[in-house]
């Protein structure tokens, strides 16, 4: 694991400051819908942060702001101390979208080469990294086949490979395990574990609490755009008698009842 320098310790890698995200409502015209309300959180170097919440809680909306896909209605967010409004804030991150199909006419190798070029990784280093990440996600055997011949699980793994191509310091993964079979989930969790062991910072969302206990240092639970619970996994386990699933159900259940 890498040793954090003094400067790194002071500066959170990811910082969200009183963030609000609003959309024009899909149901009734003219009204707005608040997807994220007054969200503040920080993620420090080397932490794995589980961003939890049921479907529609606002997890993807938060990530959309982090990646500059849509501007925040209010508040701001920072990656490595740089406002997300700047392109350069994205040089050291890797991102796995919730749902994506990669350029179908390219092979896995070609896609990774393309992204490496975007990052400005020199050719020789890029080839090394492509070998490495393809082995990691176990797509080495299919690297010269066009993506259109891939199964859904394989496409998800291409996604993971492209998120790792630039050797990012921060990974933002949007529901990386959803839609995968149990074996696929376990592999993704293993990869997150490995990244954490190497001192990477991981910010990932999920709607299942059970799976994050094993990989997260800290979790936050988002319900209807508001952060309800946030804390270290070990602390939460202590407070709730070792049963986080129960806690999650309670919070979500309460909310549904209200």
């Amino acid at each position, binding site marked *: 694991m*890498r040793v954090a320098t003094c400067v790194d310790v002071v500066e959170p890698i990811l910082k969200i400051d009183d963030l609000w995200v609003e959309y024009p409502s899909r149901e009734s015209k003219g009204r707005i819908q608040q997807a994220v309300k007054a969200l503040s959180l920080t993620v420090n170097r080397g932490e794995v942060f589980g961003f939890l919440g049921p479907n529609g809680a606002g997890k*993807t*909306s938060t990530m*959309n702001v982090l*990646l*500059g*896909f*849509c*501007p925040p209605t209010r508040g701001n967010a920072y990656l490595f101390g740089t406002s997300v409004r700047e*392109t*350069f804030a*994205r*040089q*050291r*991150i890797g*991102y*796995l*979208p919730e*749902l*994506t*199909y*990669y*350029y179908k*006419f*390219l092979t896995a190798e*070609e896609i990774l080469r*393309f*992204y490496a*070029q*975007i*990052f*400005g*990784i*020199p050719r020789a*280093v890029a080839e*090394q*990294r492509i070998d*490495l*990440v393809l*082995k*990691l996600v176990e797509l080495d055997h299919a690297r010269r086949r066009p993506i259109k011949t891939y199964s859904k699980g394989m496409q998800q793994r291409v*996604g993971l490979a*492209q*998120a*790792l191509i*630039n*050797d990012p*310091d921060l990974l*933002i993964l949007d529901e990386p395990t959803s839609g995968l079979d149990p074996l696929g989930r*376990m592999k993704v*969790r*293993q990869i997150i*574990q*490995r*990244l954490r*062991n*190497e001192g*990477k910072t991981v910010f990932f969302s999920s709607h299942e609490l059970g799976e994050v206990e*094993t*990989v997260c240092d800290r979790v936050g639970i988002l319900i209807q755009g508001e952060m309800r619970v946030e804390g270290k996994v070990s602390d939460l386990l202590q407070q709730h008698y070792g049963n986080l699933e129960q806690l999650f159900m309670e919070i979500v259940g309460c909310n549904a009842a209200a």
Partner: protein
Amino acid sequence: MNNVVPLQSTPLRCSGPAVEFRSSPASRVWAIATVVIRELCRRKDFYVLFILTALISVTLASVNIFGDDKVVRYLKEICLLLIWVSSLVIAIVTTARQIPSERENRTLFPLLAKPVSRGQLLMGKFVGCWMAVGLCLLCFYLFFGLLSGIKEQSWPVLAYLQAMLLHWAMLAMVVSMTLLGSIVFAAPSSNGTILLVVTGGILFVGSHLNKLAIGLPEPGQTLVYGLYYVLPHLELFDVRELLVHGWGLVPAAPVVGALAYAASYSALFLALASWRFRRMPVNT
């Protein structure tokens, strides 16, 4: 927290401590452009149109359906017409689908999550589409040159090159206009159709709009005059007549002027597109 399967020992990092790489805007643009060119090479569009053009031309060349002295001239005319239509279709269809398909297939998200600006993305798409149609033109004109060379026993290579250059410059305006259209018009499928109609319209009546305006009642007159001055005059770049009749080269000055004209229009369309695209939320 020990129930995790042992990890493999190879580290994910392969180059020691974090090395800060940074690409230049030009290399990012070029990377995006190469993907567009690759796509066109792997799709059937160009091959179908090329084979069609070649088949029709060769068939006409082998059957003497015209009067003897006019044979070659008609043949060249038809071949060039096919080339023009094919190149416009390829340019518009290829360009029109770029941004919509990035959004539909959601490939836009991993791409924009990388250190690339939306302006650079658009520029990459422009360069890619323009280069790709340039390659297509090269094949088309090579075929045309061979066919008419064999028929006529003359090889005015410079004239062909000049015609191709002007044709290519014209396509720069078409490509950038289509790119702008694909951002402005909400429905992606209509964009290609609209652009085909607009381009066809300009080529057929663009030079007559001012004469047309004179005969119109007032609100129409100003509108058509406006269009005459605002729309790019694509028809100016059409020097097919010169090739057909073997009238030689256009002097350098007008050619340079035309190239500058095409460059300014393309830059204008790209600037508008990029201005609009930067303000657009992409997560819908």
